[in-house]
């Protein structure tokens, strides 16, 4: 640190390091920078350094970390707040800023888009209040329409996308049923193909709110307003006698030879109110969130809940991810996104609380590869990207002009969302290393 004069603020010796690949790399030299620069200043410094080596460089926003904390204020304040000494050479790690760089064309639906799913990189699956599921291969191009539901679709899930040939998806609807569809995702057609369900899962006594598939694709679980979670088999075979052909009942003009009906394998009972969300991240563990203000972890083998987190608010959504896929993020009837760490003994207090939203949170999803990133969607029309390393949102996507009902990551660098403005929106170009 050297003092040049009174008008110039203090100078810090910093070293920029990164885990990014070659075009983003800067020489590992110590640079003296004024201490009052913010993220923007640091970003322009790094950009100018790269540009000095590579004249064709296009300016790229970066985010900066010191000791694993994102810088969200001026460097000086940050050091003061964290109590980091400015005497030695600082090592600042930079990453590409997490923000959408591009906004794709909206894909218009006939009604509110209540569910989106981007777990398959090949397509986007959406559910709509008109009772139709849609498969989008890219923005604006609908490849398949999944029909059959008489009520609004509340949730969609991709059951099996591993084998390239056919893809199995499940839709949950407010008509108290779930339907399983099979289609060929790679089939390139100009107009969208209509697909009917190969299996109808009946058994819920009230609206089905959420559906989630096991990793292997053998089973799906669904939660409903009747306070239960049902587990269903997805296979088409009638080996166990569970599936009954229903040709007689569905005597429509459609050729429904393949359509069968399934009954619940297991019912997990324990919640006292509407189970609004389920996720099935591991082979025999299901997480559920309910309006009875609790998040529960269910052991599929025994059918008992092994964890019961009390939140105090009615919950709408839950997701599991983060470090070791163990952190639980949930949002509900208040603008706070909470993250729990169930491995922490003796406490049920959330380890993180993100409260930048202004209305109910309708969806939250962990990034599939990053331990730090998650998104949340809210009825205030905003989608926020969060990093656990800072309490401020990384970026706010305000493309919807009404409630956002559902949002998901797609292909690692896109955020897809559906809302009450009947649009599926894709924000792309989010760089998460």
């Amino acid at each position: 640190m050297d003092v040049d004069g009174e008008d110039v603020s203090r100078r810090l010796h910093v070293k920029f390091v990164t885990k990014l690949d070659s075009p983003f790399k800067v020489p590992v030299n110590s640079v003296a920078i004024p201490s009052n620069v913010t993220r923007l200043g640091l970003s322009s410094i790094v950009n100018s350094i790269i540009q000095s080596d590579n004249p064709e460089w296009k300016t790229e926003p970066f985010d900066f970390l010191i000791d694993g904390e994102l810088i969200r204020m001026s460097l000086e304040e940050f050091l003061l707040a964290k109590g980091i000494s400015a005497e030695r050479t600082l090592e600042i790690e930079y990453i590409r800023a997490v923000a959408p760089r591009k906004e794709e064309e909206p894909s218009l639906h006939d009604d509110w888009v209540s569910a989106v799913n981007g777990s398959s990189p090949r397509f986007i699956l959406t559910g709509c209040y008109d009772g139709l599921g849609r498969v989008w291969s890219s923005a604006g191009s609908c490849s398949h329409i999944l029909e059959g539901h008489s009520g609004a679709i509340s949730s969609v899930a991709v059951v099996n996308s591993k084998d390239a040939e056919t893809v199995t998806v499940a839709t949950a609807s407010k008509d108290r049923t779930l339907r399983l569809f099979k289609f060929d995702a790679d089939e390139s057609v100009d107009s969208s193909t209509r697909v009917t369900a190969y299996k109808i899962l009946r058994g819920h006594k009230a609206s089905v709110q959420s559906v989630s598939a096991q990793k292997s694709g053998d089973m799906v679980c669904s939660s409903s307003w009747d306070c239960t979670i049902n587990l269903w088999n997805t296979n088409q075979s009638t080996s166990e006698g569970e599936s009954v052909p229903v040709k007689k009942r569905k005597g429509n003009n459609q050729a429904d030879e393949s359509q069968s009906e399934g009954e619940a394998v297991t019912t997990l009972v324990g919640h006292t109110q509407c189970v609004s969300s389920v996720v099935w991240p591991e082979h025999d563990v299901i997480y559920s969130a309910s309006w009875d203000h609790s998040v529960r972890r269910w052991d599929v083998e025994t059918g008992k809940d092994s964890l019961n987190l009390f939140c105090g608010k009615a919950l709408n959504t839950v997701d599991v991810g983060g470090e070791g896929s163990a952190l639980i993020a949930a949002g509900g009837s208040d603008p706070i996104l909470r993250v729990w760490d169930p491995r922490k003994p003796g406490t049920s207090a959330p380890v993180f609380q993100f409260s930048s939203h202004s209305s109910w949170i309708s969806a939250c999803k962990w990034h599939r590869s990053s331990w730090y990133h998650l998104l949340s969607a809210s009825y205030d029309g905003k989608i926020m990207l969060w990093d656990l390393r800072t309490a401020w949102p990384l970026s706010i996507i305000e493309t919807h002009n009404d409630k956002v009902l559902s949002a998901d990551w797609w292909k690692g660098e896109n955020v897809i969302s559906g809302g009450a403005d009947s649009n599926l929106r894709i924000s792309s170009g989010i760089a998460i290393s």
Partner: protein
Amino acid sequence: MTKKSKGGKEDKKAIETKSKSVSGKSQKQKKPVEKEVEKEVKEEEELIQESGTDSDYDGDSLSGSLNSDDFNSDIFESEDDVTQGGTEEEDGGDGESSQDELLVHEGSIDNEDGDDGSEQIDSDNNEEEDGSDEGSDRDEAVEESDSSEDEVAPRNTVGDVPLKWYEDEKHIGYDITGKKITKKERQDKLDSFLASMDDSKNWRKIIDDYNDEEVELTKEESKMVRRLLKGKAPHADFDPYADYVDWFKWTDAIHPLSSAPEPKRRFIPSIWEAKKVVKLVRGIRMGLIKVAKPEEEPEEGPVPYLLWEPASTSDQKNKNLTYIPPPKLKLPGHEESYNPSLEYIPTEEEKASYELMFEEDRPKLIPTRFTSLRSIPAYGNALKESFERCLDLYLCPRIRKKRINIDPESLKPKLPSRKDLRPYPNSCYLEYKGHTGAVTSISTDSSGQWIASGSTDGSVRIWEVETGRCLKVWQFDEAIKFVAWNPLSSLPVLAIAMGRDLFFLNTELGNDEEQEVIKEMFHSGNIPEPEASVAAIVTWLQDELYGGIKIRHFKNISSIDWHRKGDYLSTVMASGETRGVVLHQLSKKKTQRLPFKIRGLPVCTLFHPSLSYIFVATRKDVRVYNLLKTGLATKKLETGMREISSMAIHPGGDNLIVGSKEGKMCWFDMDLSSKPYKTLKNHPKDITNVAVHRSYPLFASCSEDSTAYVFHGKVYNDLNQNPLIVPLEILRGHSIKGGVLDCKFHPRQPWLFTAGADSIIKLYCH
């Protein structure tokens, strides 16, 4: 005693005559007049001797003469022989003064010698001439000396008349025997002058016109005159300031003054005193009289005190409660020295900056430096400050204001903190928009998944609670008055009241079996013929438009309420007696009247949540009827309000909340009383609806002032404990115009739905 004193008086007169005779006799003995002085000295000696003998005689006189006995009774000392001698001697001492007095008389008596008449008297008394009476006689003379009345009678008896009446006569009056007293020859002036020149004592002579004689004053008399002229006591040895001699001995005498026995009243307790004592005792007991405790005498010796105690704390405070200690002055520092160190002295710039400051902010003292004490000038502000001090004293209030120091917080009732009573609805996150008219009524589905709303635009809508999506719309011609969701979850039927019609609508939200049941129920064919008793009131019809059932009433419906079992529905019309409230049975499509008469016009009804009771609110009262019994109301609840607008019952069934059109809300604890347990006056305008939560201890009221109030209302199982009511939150948000028309709690969450006249339904979450 009175007798004696009378006798004493008579005696006195006698003594006077005696003294006259005594003096007369002594003067007879000593003639001529020129040698008076010597004679008097002699006389004195005699008198002293006499008084000496007097004491001797006294013992005899006690027994012997009646006269002396009487005297003794008058004079205290005569009773006691022991002191007699001493007192007599004192008397003897006083003898001189009394002697002087006598001498004054002498002057006048001297000249009587020539008179015969007076001699007679003298001779009368002479036989009694005795020294024994002399002492007491002289005492009398001393006593009597002030009165001029009893002096020696003058020779002339004309009395106090102007002497000029006798100027032309040869006599000047008459003596005691009536003979004329002739005027003497007067010396002419020359003779008298010559005489005065010859006689050196002539200046002492005075002419007594009244008796027509010449009187020569003695030396003593002239002295006396001189003394009188000076304003002194006539006798030189009279001490006007003599020590007071307390003649009475206060020590108890052996023998009582009176031998009369003690009267009885001295031995019996006094009734008056007893009364007085009782009065005092009563006063003390009642605390009217404060008995001062005997003060403990402070111990002798010097009282220790705190040497270094600040002066203001100890004494003045205790003495005077209103003592206000003066503000403490700062101790002087270096800057207040006349010769402060240089660093205290402000620079020119600093002084200039002081000028720019406000006068109040300026430092009071700017340190300045003087080379010596001599060079310090007089304090410049002395006059100004003393003037201001005088002004302060003049203008300062003389009365100390008495302030009651009550913490305003302590006056509030002790209520639990709002934080402890969470959860309760406090913020609005969701709005249900779509109606075009004021939303008059809302109703929640028993599961809490949907709400139904009716509006003045004639539409009934069903909304999904969690997303705010409108699922279904039914459009009617009339403004919707009331919507009510069937309490059974298996029977998703909506009752809608508008104008004179009541609709039962299938919401089509149930599962297939339920739908079939409802369709069967609503099928047109099986509407039975109405009973004659209700035929005039209601007509059951099939509704073609939406496939429901329509019940047409004879009057406008003001309120409806489902029974908890979901089969019966009560409708209220503004009509008296038995026609105001009717019960519809949905399963049998039957209508029946209440089996009792209702006094007044019913406003709304409410079924008891667990028992077969019905609450009927008229304008001012709420009556509770047993549905299974005919007859009178089992209970009447007096609200004390002008006009009831709505009712809600606690799920326990023992507590009723009534809202009124004057903004008041009553909480009735029906086990406690038929009067309100609490009356809450919160809303400035009409309360449109009240609501109680099914599971949380919450209740709410909404009003035309476009606010909704949320209260904590906890009912305890313990009958001894009264319900706890705590106001929690004022929910605002609806536009001012028209206010909030309905509020309903979410059946399972601590959330409140409010329906506004601004056509918006709001959901307030916790």
